[in-house]
């Protein structure tokens, strides 16, 4: 059941992210990007399998069926990178507002 719930949640998250990315408001676009990259992280965690115990060796005996710890290490890296890029994107939004006086992508224009 967990698998189906997670698959559904991931689907909803990606949909929401895509919807926000297609908005005209730059802030919403950035939130959309953030949601998409966070759902990529959730997706990554689920790829390691949902059953099993924490991969920590207790005193004297190893965990018998550990979850794959590698994906969690990957996700940590991805979260840190995502944090940095989100911060940059938000600052950039503010700078765009300062330079153009608008955060509406249609008013920004820019198609050559």
């Amino acid at each position: 059941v967990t698998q189906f719930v997670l698959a559904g949640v991931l689907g909803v998250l990606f949909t929401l992210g895509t919807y926000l990315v297609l908005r005209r408001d730059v802030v919403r676009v950035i939130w959309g990007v953030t949601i998409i990259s966070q759902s990529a992280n959730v997706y990554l965690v689920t790829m390691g399998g949902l059953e099993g115990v924490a991969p920590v060796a207790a005193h004297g005996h190893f965990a018998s069926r550990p979850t794959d710890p590698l994906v969690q290490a990957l996700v940590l890296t991805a979260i840190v990178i995502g944090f940095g890029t989100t911060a940059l994107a938000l600052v950039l939004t503010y700078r765009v507002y300062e330079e153009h006086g608008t955060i509406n992508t249609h008013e920004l224009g820019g198609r050559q």
Partner: protein
Amino acid sequence: VTQLVVAPLLVALVTAILALLARPSDRLQRGVSLLGGVAYLAAVAALFDAVVLPFGEPSRALVYQVSNWPAPFGISLVADALSAFMLGLAAIVSLAALAFSLPYVGRFGQRLSYHPLYHFMLVGVTGSFLTGDLFNLFVWFEVMLMSSYILVLFYSGPEHTRAALYYVVLNLLASAVMLVAIGGIYATTGTLNMADLARRLADPAAYEIALLPTLGLAALLFSVFALKAGIAPFQFWVPQAYRAAPTPVTAVLAGVVKKVGVYAVVRLYFTVFAAATLPRGLGLPGLAVPSGQDATFLAFFGPVLFLMATASILLGGVGAVSRDDVDGVLAYSSIGQVGFIVLPLAVVATVPVTEIRVLGVTAALVYAFNHGLAKSLLFLASGIVGEAVGSGEFDDLGGLAGRAPVLAAAFLIGALALIGVPPLSGFFGKFLVFDAAVRALTGGGAGTGAALALAVALVGAVLTIAYFTRAWNAVFWGPASETVEAALPARWSPRDPSTVGEAIADGGRGAGDSGASRDPSGARDGGAGATPIGAPSRRLAVEVTVVVSLALAIVGFGIGFEGLYAAADAAARAAVDTGGYVDAVAPREVLG
């Protein structure tokens, strides 16, 4: 000697950190940065010597297992001929662009963050070329992109913030997609090590791998690399970002960073995914594989790459013909030229003959090398024109050939190299592209696809001639326009400052006070703002020297083409030699 693999990486990283620490003294910072660029070239040369030289012998692969963790548990850094070749291109272009940026980028900008960012971008590029681990590739991409975001945003004007916004959002989405693809590949194959991946894909039954999901995920990953390389339909970010970034950064973005995407396509699809055979009975269109043989994943990507290359060549060519400013022409030309790089890859992807496949990859690499040198030369030359005349619009330009003949000659060499005139290296690049298509047609049974490729390449070549002729006529020939007259009253001479008009003496970009700019200690900081460093005439002399050196390099690689060809050939052989790659990394068997 396996530590040699990390040498370029460490040199770039140490330079970036030292440049950050040296901020209090901008003269020291510039020295550290330039020295770092030279050291990087030396480290790459040493690595190239260890891996590829002497020509004629089979190339070797050096593998550095980080922290001595055996593959696939740790991260492997692999330097084979392909990596060494790409690093060579990166080292040459980045050093030239760095030397150019010293007089070009304003004092304030250089102090602020330019040098550390430049070298961090180089760290990301180097890591991408060297890594043997899929997730690690993602991390290096991010390192490279993070620096490039800020460099595109560097001038922070209205145009720059807008271009950077689109560039950042697009690449963040691409990163998320890449992460999803990598996670999925890990889930289906159980490994992230590229060599281990190739080995497992070659024998999917033994490792219980479902091939169809892997194919889909590989396609997802492919779209990310196509975005990085700026191949159609992912080419739309290119012109804006290139116009926004400072000229030397644009040269590196077009010359090197784009090639990272091309490298990733070659490495992953020709080395790794080529090991996997397509499930039978897939019934995909365009798969012209001789009956009796199993098509590989590579054959699946052949038609896809072909359509993308064709679209790039046509879109880029037509776009470049219709632009009215130098940078615009060059940016659209970049899109078309990447199509030319990818075209031979597409043609040979469906051909199962190793020799033809090697030829196709060689053609792509030689073309990429030539494009890297020539396009960065042209962007830098356009930067000089912009600085000297104060405009890059065709309407404002004209007659520069008489005022700055050396610059004009260098620009001409760059343009001719991209058009493909012998004896410049570009001729051989284009020749090999055609040769690969013809051989795939005659010897590889590639069928109508290769004939179509020839036709597209011809149309693309004609378009290239058209837009460069137009740019050349508008910028360098004809009578001097009023703007040019004001900026360069007479024929420019580096020894005679009076030949430089008011426009340049003002710093070209509007921030005056050349008195302060002659004082490199930086004591008079506040008012100097974006003032470039050094007297205008001397600045121009340095910049023209860099451009001329690149032009000489293009001529040199054309005349001494045998060496370049041998290197590209070794790189291509390494690229298609999946078995050799797996053996070099030697990942241990992991019991499921």
